[in-house]
Every structure is written in structure tokens, then in C-alpha cells.
């Protein structure tokens, strides 16, 4: 599994991709500073709604993970090197798990770094609030990594479909249709934040911390299982 992980990191960590990730990671920090300096909009609710929910969890984090995860298998299918991995005695899950781990490892410094610095700016170094944001970012990162890695295996247009999902589902519909929150990564991320620091994140969450973590964990495991099944069943170019 270590060899697959190394190979994945080598493929994912290209200069252009790291540059895109860095730019995306800097965006929420810039917005965080603008919100904090704008005295008319510095309530925790504004900060949470605009930045943590809307931008970081709902847009920037999934975009960062998508830019890495969609190509984890997608590039190998495209350039026909996937056969090198598939024609080995490794059980398929030993290919999928390090691929997902590689995606997480490549995106984590940017997603978590951004989340940490945003919470540092927004919550005046409050350790509980920072912990809440960081744990939520880890959970969101893992779930998005599993989701978009599976998408990259399942369809050829993973990047486009992933973008549509982020903009329409996470960004638009989940904000207006309350039922969709039960199927939105963004809102499960918020539920984790609420669960860890209810003092700061006072808005009533739609699920408890335990439920949120359980749903996110089970969904991630299901997506890894589906990716494994897909890798076993697909025709490899």
C-alpha cells in the first residue's frame, strides 16, 4: 500500500496543482480578514454563515479536494497507466485506500491550514473554536476525498460533474431547501462544529455531533467500498 501511496502522491503533487491549491487556500483567509475588519459584519453568525459554511466547507474545501481527487484515478484512466496498478496481485481495496489517503495527504495541508488560520483570525485564538473548525475540516476533507475519488473512477467527466455538485447541491440547494441539509456534506461539517463548541456556534444544528460523525464515517466507508467494486468491475483501458 505504501508504494501505491507514494505513486499517488508523486502523480498528484505537480507544481500547477499545488499552486491552484495554495491560491484556493488563501481565498478564505483573505475573506476572513475582510469580515473581521468590517465592523458591521463581525458577529459569529455572519462569520459562520459566510465563511465557514458558505466558503470553506461548502465551496473552497470541496474545490480543493475535487482538484486532487478527480484525477487520482482519472489521470491514470486518461493516460492508460491504470493497468500498471490493476495488473498486480494487490486486492483492489489496497489500491483504493492508498489512493484516497494520497488525496487526503495532498489536500490536507491546504484545507486544514486554511481552516486553522481562518478560525484563528475569526475567533481570536479561542482553542475550542479552533478545534471545532479543524475537526470539522478533517471530517469534511475525508468525506469529500472519498466522494470525489469514487466520482473520478465512476465517470470520465468527474471534474465537471463535481463542480456542478459543489455549486448547485452544496452551494445553492442545501442553503434553501432544509431537507437537503441531511444530504449535504457542508451541513454535516457545521454540525461537527456545533457539537464541539456549542458556546460559539449557537445556531441549532440539524443533527448531533455523534450522528454527524457517524453519518460521515459510514458514508466515507461506503464510498471506498463502491470505489473498490467499481475498480474490480470496470474495463481498464
Amino acid at each position, binding site marked *: 500500500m505504501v508504494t501505491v501511496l507514494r505513486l499517488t502522491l508523486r502523480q498528484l503533487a505537480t507544481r500547477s496543482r499545488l499552486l491552484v491549491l495554495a491560491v484556493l487556500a488563501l481565498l478564505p483567509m483573505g475573506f476572513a480578514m475582510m469580515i473581521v475588519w468590517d465592523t458591521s459584519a463581525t458577529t459569529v453568525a455572519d462569520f459562520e454563515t459566510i465563511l465557514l459554511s458558505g466558503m470553506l466547507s461548502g465551496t473552497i474545501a470541496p474545490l480543493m479536494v475535487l482538484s486532487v481527487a478527480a484525477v487520482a484515478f482519472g489521470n491514470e484512466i486518461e493516460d492508460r497507466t491504470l493497468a500498471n496498478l490493476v*495488473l498486480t496481485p494487490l486486492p483492489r481495496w489496497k489500491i483504493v485506500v492508498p489512493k484516497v489517503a494520497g488525496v487526503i495527504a495532498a489536500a490536507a495541508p491546504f484545507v486544514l491550514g486554511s481552516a486553522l488560520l481562518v478560525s484563528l483570525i475569526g475567533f481570536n485564538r479561542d482553542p475550542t473554536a479552533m478545534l471545532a473548525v479543524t475537526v470539522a475540516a478533517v471530517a469534511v476533507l475525508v468525506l469529500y476525498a472519498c466522494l470525489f475519488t469514487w466520482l473520478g473512477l465512476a465517470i470520465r467527466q468527474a471534474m465537471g460533474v463535481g463542480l456542478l455538485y459543489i455549486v448547485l447541491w452544496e452551494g445553492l440547494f442545501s442553503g434553501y431547501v432544509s431537507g437537503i441539509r441531511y444530504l449535504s456534506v457542508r451541513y454535516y461539517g457545521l454540525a461537527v462544529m456545533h457539537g464541539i463548541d456549542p458556546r460559539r456556534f449557537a445556531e441549532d444544528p440539524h443533527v448531533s455531533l455523534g450522528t454527524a460523525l457517524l453519518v460521515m464515517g459510514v458514508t466515507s466507508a461506503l464510498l471506498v467500498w463502491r470505489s473498490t467494486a467499481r475498480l474490480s468491475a470496470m474495463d481498464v483501458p
Partner: protein
Amino acid sequence: MSTSPVIRVDGVSRWFGNVVAVSDVSFEIRPGITGILGPNGAGKTTLLRMMTGLAEVSSGTIRMFGEPVRRNPPLYGRIGVMSEHETVYGRMTGRTFVRTMARLRGVPDSGAATERAIELVDLLDAADLRMDTYSRGMRQRMRLAATLVHEPEVLVLDEPLNGADPRQRYHFQKLLRRLAADGRTVLLSSHILEEVEQLADTVLLVINGKLAASGGFRAIRAALDHRPYHVRILSDDVRRLAGELMRLDCVEAVRLEGGDALVAQSTRVRELQVELPRIASSAGLRLLRVEPLDDSLESVFGYLVER
């Protein structure tokens, strides 16, 4: 050497929508070198992909060492596959690439195995160069090293000599013969008749997704010897030349094409090659050009299929 079949392909078909890529193909492959010969688009690659478990069959079964090849990762440790696609991990050196492949296949001493494999393909000097700086032939050889690094019992090579120069071809052929002599099963595909003729003990002729012929090369060559050839001849007086040609036993028919060209049909084309200059010289005719019309592999296959 064992003579029991290593690979059994039984009634295999594969279609993509309405397009039939492989149609009801059955054969067995034993240790030694087997060549799959067919024109481009004949279904060779699809057949090889199914035989290595990379693609699903639409119907039929494929077994290797008595086991199904599809969804059987432990079996893949016994196979070495080199696809026709030349894409490699460009930013890797050749040595890193081969070592990575060794580790993925669980080779115990991957370092030593890597050196052995690279030495086999005679590329030790270039092993630390990045693969995107290699020539096409070098890339193919390094890919072959990666295919051989775990010492597979079955080698499946899809158009392996693409891009190889004559020296590399010679080296490659020698290597494959040695592997076959060790008792391994080597399966290679090609669309070049001579390539397979020089290497393979057994030939499978595939055309339009069907197995047109199979067996030893001599038997297939003998079948080809009965095939009529068409030769276009340009001369300064084609009518007179046509008359002279019709007197030859080795010419079955002559057709005037207009202008200064005619087409002669013969099943004894070697005899025609000798007789043509002789009759032209004795009749005082100038031969402007002589060209075979149907020497392509496709026409050879077409003839065999029609039979």
C-alpha cells in the same frame, strides 16, 4: 516442457454496443511463443485485454492455469503484461519505474530484481534518466524490463516491437526465445507478418474479430502460397506486353487498366518475377514500373478468410 494449455479461450465474444470486436473465438495457448497476427482494428488488443482480465467478456470463458482471469488479483502476479500504449510515468527515472513495478507485484528483493531486469534489456546506462527523455525504443525496452521484473510465467506483449530499431529487434527476439526456452508462455501480437514469422512457434490469425486460422507458421504460409497475387505493370507498350504475358504458364489473367498500365494475376508470383524481365527484354519492351497490388497483410487475411 509441459504441453498442457496454459490459457484456454472458449467461445469468447466481446461487443461494444452494436459493434462486435471479437466474435466467438476459441483456442488454447501452450508454453512457447504464440503470435497473434492481424491487421489494425482486427480485435487483437481487445482479445489480449480480455485474456489478461483488463476487460470483461460479453460471452464465453477465459481461464489461465485453470483459473478465471477476471477479478483474480493473485493470478496477476504470474502474468507480465506490456500494453501497446507507450505512456509511462514521465517524471520517473527508468530505474524508479521498474522498482515501483517490482514493489507493486510484491517482489521480495525489489532492488536486485530491478537491476536484473534492466540488465536484461540492456539499459543499465540509461536507468537513471527520466523516462520522458527516452527514445521510443528505449521506453519500450524499459517497459519490457518492468514487465519482466517479477519473472512472470506468462508474458503478454501487445505490439512490443513498435519503435524498435533493427538492433533492438534482434536483442528483443533473442530475449523472448530465451524466455520461451525456459518454459514460459509468451503471447505477442503484431500486425507485421515477418515479425511473427521470425518469432512465433504458433500463430493465431485474427481478422474482423474472428479467428481466421491457427497453427504453425508453415501451414499458414502454405495456405498463402495458393493465393493469387495481382501485380500492376507499367510499360511503353502494354498491349504487346499483355500478349507476351498470356503465353506464360504462371500468369492466369491479364487486365488492361488504360494508359500504359496492366494488371497481371498469378499464383506463382516468384516465377513471374523471373519471367517478366526476360520476356520484356526479348520483346524489346521497356518496363516502367512493377508494383504488387495486394501485398498488404490485410489482403492476406482477406484471402484466408474468404477461403
